[in-house]
Structure formats: C-alpha cells, structure tokens
C-alpha cells in the first residue's frame, strides 16, 4: 500500500477503525468465540501500529491536519468561507503522545481480558464497549474542534459507564457506575455550555480559529471556569475526586486500567484548553497557580486517603488521584511561567516532567490495577486482610507488582523516578515547598505499597492457588516492557517524545498557524 496515502489519512483511520470494528463485533461474535477474540486483538494491534506509524512522522516535526469531508484533507478553510467550518482533526506531538498512551493501555487490557472476563456474561458486548472507549479517548485527543471534543467526551462517558457496571450482579458495581455517570454528564453539560458561550461571541467552533480570536472577555472567563471545573472533575482532581475510588474499585480490573487512560484524556483536554485555546491571553499566574494548588491538594489528600484503605483497588484508586496531582503540578508550573523568561530554562522542564509523568502513570498504574485483577481472579476478594502468601504460587504476578510499585514510588531504575525528578527540580526553583511536598508524597506512596506487598504476597502460604492464565500475564508484560524501556532510556524518551509534546503544548502560535495559516 502507498505509505503516503496511509500517512495522510491515518488521523481519520485511527478513529474510524475501532468505531467500525466496535459495531462489527456483535456480528463476529455470532461466528465463534475464537473468531471474536482474534478479531478484537487484531484490531487493537493494527490500531497500535497505525498510531505508532503516525507518531513516528509527527515526532519528526510534521503536525498533521485532516479536514473531514473535504476533497483535499489539507484545505481547512473552504473556498466560500473565511473560517474553518468542517470538522478538523489536528494531530500535533501532544495529541499523538496521548493517543499512544490510549492505544497501548487498551492493547494490554484487551489481551488481559481474554482470560480475565468470563464467557458467561456477554463478552462480545464487552469488547464492543472497550473499542468504543478507545474511540472516545482517541477522538478527544486528536480532534481540533470544540463540539467534536464534547461528542467524543460523551461517547467515552457512555461506554465507560456501561463497563463500570459490567458486574451488574453486584449492587456496588451499579452504584459506582451511577456516580460516574452523574459526575460525567454534569461535566459534559458544563463543557457544552462553555462551548455555547464561546460560539455566541466568535461564531467559531474550531479550536485554532477560536484561539486566534479569543479576547478574554468576561464571558470567556465564565467559559474558562466551566471548562476547567468540568475537566478537573473528569480527571479526578481533589476537591472533585469523590467518584474516582468508587468507580475505579468496582469496575473489572482491565477496565480500571483503561479508566486511568480515560481520565488522562480529560486531563489532556484541560491542558489543551489552558494552553492552546486561551494561551497567553490568560491571567497566567492565577490559572497556573490554581492548577498548582489543585495538584498539591490532589497529591496530598490522595495519598493520605490511600494509606488506611483495606480494599486493594480502592487504595490504588486513591494513589491514582495522588499521581494526577504530580501531572497538574508539573504542567501548572509550566503554565505559571509561560510568558516569563524562566520558561525556556526550567518552565519547559517542569512541563516535560508533568507530561512524561502522564505516560509513566498510565503504564505503571495500569499494570498495578491489572495485578490487583489477577489477585481478584484467583481469590475473588479485594480485601487485603484476606490475602497473604501469594508470592509462593503467583510468582510472575508478584514480580509485575514489585516493578509497578517501585515505579510508582519513584525508585531509580524505573520510569517513575525519571519524571518525578524532573518535577522536583523544576518545582524547587519556583518554591522549595512544592518539591518538599512532592517528595513527602512519594515516600508515603512507597510506604503504602510496601504495606500492600507485605499483606498480599509475603507470609506463609495460606491460599492454594495457581498462577493466572497466560493471556493475563501477557497483558501485564506489555506494560512492564514499556516501564522498563522508559526506565532504562529516560534521556532518549524525554528528548524525542516528551520534549516535542511539551513544545507543542506551549507554542500556541504554531497550533493556530497549522490550521489557519497553512
């Protein structure tokens, strides 16, 4: 096949492929179980290859533009009009960076689900919804249109809710899903209202065109507050974090790993709105300061709530809140310094730390949730007090858990250390107290995971269990591979992947010019 053609159309294909596959899934499901499993895995692998293929080109310095429905996908502005009217997909380094996270986590979770999800409860529908979550995430990350962002946010919400309630024979799964649905739909309505406020003033929906016209009037400020509140709510930042532990703990473990990536898609939307949509028109020290405060609160409240938990997934969910705080802190420091001269020295470093932490967190937190699912698969409990001695029989699970736990605590050979160090260094220059809190949180995280490791894997052999099936180990191995790779070569990753992403987020002019000036 002609690679140029594929490269040009890949932004649309990346979204269309899982969408079509999702609705083909019920048909394939009727053929046989094996056909369905093979089909699901092939789609996820092809998706991953497409994303990496496009990523290779985007990181080479070419942001991609794709105009839906135009004869030539590069003509964003139609001949009869002065502004972009059609839906435009804008794939820059930051967007494709997030797409890589989503595709990888979904691939690992898809392989893991082969054995993890029992056959009795509509596994065909499970894979349909899993692919729809992938569509929602990728759509949010690749789109350059405000209303399209809202639509994909809702696709994501509906698919996530259905899968959180997947074990609907237990009441708590439905309860967690209901909470998630309420929070998500309020957030989505806030987003829609904000879009309407922006549309009312500028008659524009395209993000780049809006960014070039935005005035930071009073209505814009209201829209900004609504957007920041909605996306912060969706990404589970304190003080809007209450749904996170409930939804994360009741969903099947493979879905929880994907939910982490889905929350990060909202985090990405938050950063996109702050940097690319409003950018330098913002009152940077106020909004940057707000993000830093959200980050500090999330870090500290998350970890202190995690320490006393007895439910293993609830504990990990509170850690997910706490780790989101690091990303908000890192990128918040970057936003705070955006127009100041210090930005080129340590402001960009802070953003690199925050953005690098996004991919690291998706990998190790995904891995940790998958290991908790492995324990649940054998013991049928999430209660830490009923576990013990699993290290004797579930050796691979124990090894994967150690790697994930060391990575989240920021111990040197693993990837968590690299991104946390970048955040510590840059935040220290803004105010030493930020770094001190971040390090304290890191130590508490380690303490908490030592407790989990001790109560789940150490001690005498109580439970007579076997290792989990091979496909579950394979799913965990995919994420472990990425963690070790990033841990061994952090310099290469930061230089070639994270730095372009941070640069793409920081440079609003380039984002606007790619659509309008081109």
């Amino acid at each position, binding site marked *: 096949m002609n690679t140029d053609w594929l490269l040009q159309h890949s932004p649309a294909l990346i979204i269309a492929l899982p969408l079509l596959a999702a609705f083909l899934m019920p048909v394939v499901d009727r053929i046989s179980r094996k056909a369905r499993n093979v089909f699901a895995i092939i789609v996820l692998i092809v998706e991953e290859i497409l994303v990496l293929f496009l990523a290779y080109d985007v990181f080479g310095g070419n942001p991609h533009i794709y105009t839906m429905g135009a004869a030539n996908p590069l003509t964003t502005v139609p001949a009869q009009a002065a502004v972009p009217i059609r839906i435009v997909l804008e794939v820059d380094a930051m967007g494709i960076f997030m797409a890589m996270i989503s595709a990888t986590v979904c691939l690992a979770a898809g392989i893991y689900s082969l054995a993890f999800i029992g056959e009795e409860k509509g596994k065909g529908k499970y894979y349909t919804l899993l692919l729809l979550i992938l569509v929602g995430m990728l759509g949010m990350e690749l789109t350059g249109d405000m*209303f399209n962002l809202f*639509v994909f946010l*809702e696709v994501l*919400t*509906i698919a996530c*809710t*259905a899968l959180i*309630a997947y074990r*609907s024979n*237990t*009441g*708590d799964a*439905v*309860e*967690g*899903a*209901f909470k998630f*649905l*309420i929070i998500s*739909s*309020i957030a*989505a*309505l806030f987003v*829609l*209202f904000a*879009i*309407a406020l922006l*549309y*009312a003033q500028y*008659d524009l*929906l395209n993000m780049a065109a809006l960014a070039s016209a935005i005035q930071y009037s009073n209505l814009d400020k209201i829209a900004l507050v609504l957007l920041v509140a909605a996306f912060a709510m969706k990404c589970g930042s304190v003080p809007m974090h209450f749904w996170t*532990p*409930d939804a994360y*703990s*009741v969903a099947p473990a493979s879905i929880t790993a994907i939910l982490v990536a889905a929350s990060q898609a909202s985090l990405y939307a938050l950063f996109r709105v702050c940097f690319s949509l409003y950018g330098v028109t913002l009152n940077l020290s106020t909004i940057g300061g707000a993000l830093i405060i959200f980050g500090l609160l999330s870090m500290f409240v998350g970890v202190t709530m995690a320490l006393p*938990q*007895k*439910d293993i997934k*609830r504990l990990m969910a509170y850690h997910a809140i706490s780790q989101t705080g690091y990303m908000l802190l890192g990128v918040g420091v970057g936003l705070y310094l955006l127009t100041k001269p210090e930005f080129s020295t340590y402001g960009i470093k802070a953003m690199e730390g925050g953005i690098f932490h996004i991919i690291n967190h998706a990998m190790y937190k995904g891995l940790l949730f998958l290991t908790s699912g492995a324990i649940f698969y054998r013991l049928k409990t999430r209660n830490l007090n009923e576990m013990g001695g699993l290290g004797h029989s579930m050796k691979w699970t124990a090894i994967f858990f150690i790697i994930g736990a060391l990575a989240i605590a920021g111990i040197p050979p693993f990837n968590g250390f690299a991104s946390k160090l970048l955040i510590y260094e840059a935040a220290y220059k803004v105010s030493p107290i930020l770094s001190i809190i971040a390090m304290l949180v890191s130590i508490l995280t380690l303490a908490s995971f030592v407790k989990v490791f001790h109560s789940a894997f150490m001690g005498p052999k109580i439970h007579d269990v076997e290792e989990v099936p091979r496909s579950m180990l394979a799913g965990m191995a995919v994420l472990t591979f990425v963690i070790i790779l990033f841990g061994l070569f952090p310099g290469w990753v930061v230089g070639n992947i994270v730095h372009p992403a941070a640069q793409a987020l920081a440079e609003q002019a380039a984002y606007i010019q790619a659509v309008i000036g081109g």
Partner: protein
Amino acid sequence: MIYSIPFYTVIILILVGMYAMIFRRNLIKMAIGLTIVESAVNLFLVTLGYREGGVAPIYTNLPSGIKIPEEMVLPVPQALTLTSIVIGVAILALMLSLSIMIYRHYGTLDSKKVRRLKE
C-alpha cells in the same frame, strides 16, 4: 429586554436542575434534574441561533426576494442542539436503567441508603 427573557430562563432552569441534583435524594429526581439542566443548555443553543425574520437555509425552498446569505439562518446551533438532544436521550436511558438495577439490588432509590461503597 424582551429578547433577554430566554437567557434568564436558561439561568433559572440551570439553577433548578442543579438544585434537584444536589439536594434531592431520590435517584429518579436526580435524573430529572440532569434533564432540566440539559434542556436549559439546549434552549441556550437554540436562542443563540435565532434571527428575527430569518429563513431556513434550504436553497431549493427559498421564498422569493431573499438576500443570500444575509437573511438566512446559520444552521450550526440547530445541528449542535440536535446532537446534544440525541446524546441526552442516551444518557437518560442509561441512568434510568442503572436506577432500575439499583432498586433491584438495594430495594430503595434513596441515595443516602445506596452507599455500600462507603467504608
């Protein structure tokens, strides 16, 4: 002044809906609150698209003597509203089906009693 009435209605409806979602304990009433907020946002979108004396932009069915495109209405807000209504129906259906399942498991729709997850 008369043209501002829809906007005041939007604000009132949003407040009513948020009140229902935050202070009502019945899950069905929370779903109703959400629907009210959604209607308010839809009303806001439709109001934005209103133009006095404008006609629908269907080129094959235009009254004679219309200036193109000055007297036509931009169809984008209507398109947005339709999409938003469809999504709203999906969300509402999902929410009500979850309420049914919650009622089966807990025997109540009172949100204060549906809290098995609280440690």
